[in-house]
């Protein structure tokens, strides 16, 4: 069963006017696999995430979730089929309490709960991401990492089949980073399927089974982390850009 591909991206293209942000990209993700989607800034990673989650519609090409075509569906339909995500810049629901933020993920999504059930599950999740007993806290005064934790709990609340983490580790200090990496490792051990867009290479090396490298909208490599990161074209792509 573990060889079945849960998500397949087939010659997907996204053009904004004349600018092609994602250029006929193909890749697939197997069930229970954690893959890293990496590449220099502006290479089209976040656009790719937006295409999978339905925030954007591809210009051409197909995206399938477990065989079903999801490209072109509105975002809420894709979410209900089991794709959950976090955002590059944290998006907390400010006027809701912490636990309500988590419940928000559970009520309308893939696996739905309401009332006391949703409340109990949300408490478990808060505990899991390290926010136990902070459910009633107003979200406005939370620290950055706590907001990121909360967003992760919200994404997990629907028990998604595919979790998209868009630079979830960005902006954390070294000790927070360690905690963050442990959290994601935990999720992987649960057998969750995850795509993470990340610039933190240590995290990619220690967490991912496989990674897909994009540069200027094109997929330039796809394979095991060690092998891919030593390929010359990947190195040039990174050295050509100013960050790595």
């Amino acid at each position, binding site marked *: 069963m573990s060889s079945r591909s849960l998500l397949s991206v087939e010659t997907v293209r996204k053009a904004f006017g004349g600018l092609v942000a994602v250029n006929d990209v193909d890749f697939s993700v197997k069930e229970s696999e954690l893959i890293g989607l990496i590449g220099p800034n502006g290479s089209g990673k976040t656009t790719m995430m937006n295409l999978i*989650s*339905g*925030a954007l519609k591809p210009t051409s090409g197909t995206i399938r979730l477990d065989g079903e075509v999801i490209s072109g569906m*509105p*975002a*809420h339909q894709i*979410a*209900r089929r089991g794709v*959950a*995500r976090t*955002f590059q810049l944290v*998006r907390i*629901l*400010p*006027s*809701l309490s912490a636990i309500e933020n988590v*419940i*928000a*993920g559970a*009520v*309308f*999504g*893939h696996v739905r709960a*309401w*009332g*006391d059930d949703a*409340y109990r599950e949300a408490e478990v999740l808060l505990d899991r991401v390290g926010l136990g007993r902070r459910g009633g806290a107003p979200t406005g005064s939370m620290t950055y990492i706590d907001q990121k934790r909360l967003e992760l709990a*919200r994404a997990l609340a*629907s028990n998604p089949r595919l979790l998209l983490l868009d630079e979830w580790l960005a902006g954390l200090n070294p000790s927070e980073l360690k905690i963050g990496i442990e959290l994601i490792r935990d999720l992987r051990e649960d057998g969750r399927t995850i795509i993470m867009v990340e610039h933190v290479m240590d995290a990619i090396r220690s967490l991912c089974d496989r990674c897909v490298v994009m540069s200027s909208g094109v997929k330039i490599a796809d394979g095991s982390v060690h092998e891919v990161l030593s390929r010359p074209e990947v190195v040039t792509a990174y050295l050509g850009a100013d960050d790595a």
Partner: protein
Amino acid sequence: MTRLSEKELRIAVLAIVGFAAVATIPLFDDGYYLSLSVNIALYAVLCTAWTLFSGPTHYISLATAAFFGIGTYTVGLGIDVLPFPVLLVIAAIASGLLAGLVGVATLRLSGVYFVIFTLGLAELVRQVVTWLQTNFTNGVGLYVFTDMGEKHIFWMLLALAAVVYVTGWLINRSRLGFAMRIIGNDELVARHVGIDVARAKVILFVVSGAFIGVTGAILAPRFAYVEPPSAFNPVISFQVVIMALLGGTGRLWAPLLGVIPFTILFDQISSRFPNHTSLLIGVAFMAIVYFLPRGVSGLIEDLRKVRGDFGSAAKAKEAVR
């Protein structure tokens, strides 16, 4: 989330007592004060129904006059043929249907499109109704003769108000209400947790429009003679927006805080200075935007918060000592 909390029970009892007390008004007066009470009840229903939709979505609807007029017209057309309660149901369905159509066409888009569309909606319906009547029937005006007086209208409005409040309260506790809170916070997140944002907005707009339609139907016997310009009077739309915003749209009861003072004020101004009503409406809009952006209820909450902060600061000081 299913049982009533103690606080909710207390509010429910208070509300019932309040409604019962207000319902006795016709026993004491059947002249000016009853007529003023009908106006207040009328706008209380309209503004609360308006807020059901416009509060959480922040879309300013100016379609009130269109829904209201449809309700009035339903009664005007059907009063000789069908019993009154049936007409109320038809009014709800007809205006709800119109709200659904408008919602589907405009609610996927930004607020400006919606405002513009609803701005002319009453005028559009008026033109179409007038055209249909002059071309396919034998006259434009309709007579509504019933044996209902002001007090019957008042009691019907009170009953409708109760229904609107209960509906609003039920929505707030439901998934739809929770979805609206999320949408109000961040639409993008709402979509990505699986909420069909457009559908939620359309449902609320339909509910709100249906209530406004019923209100128009209830008011029809008061007019006795119904014709397009009076039934689809656009001023109602603006008054509802002003009163609701003046009261505040954050809470179910908040519009009431705007309805009572403004209805009395408007009544006084329009009877003493009939040429100044436009000016009054204009000044009221400006005053709300510049001085009361969150309405009277927002102001009360701010004051409470200030006092609360002050109180806790004082306590903290004491604790230090």
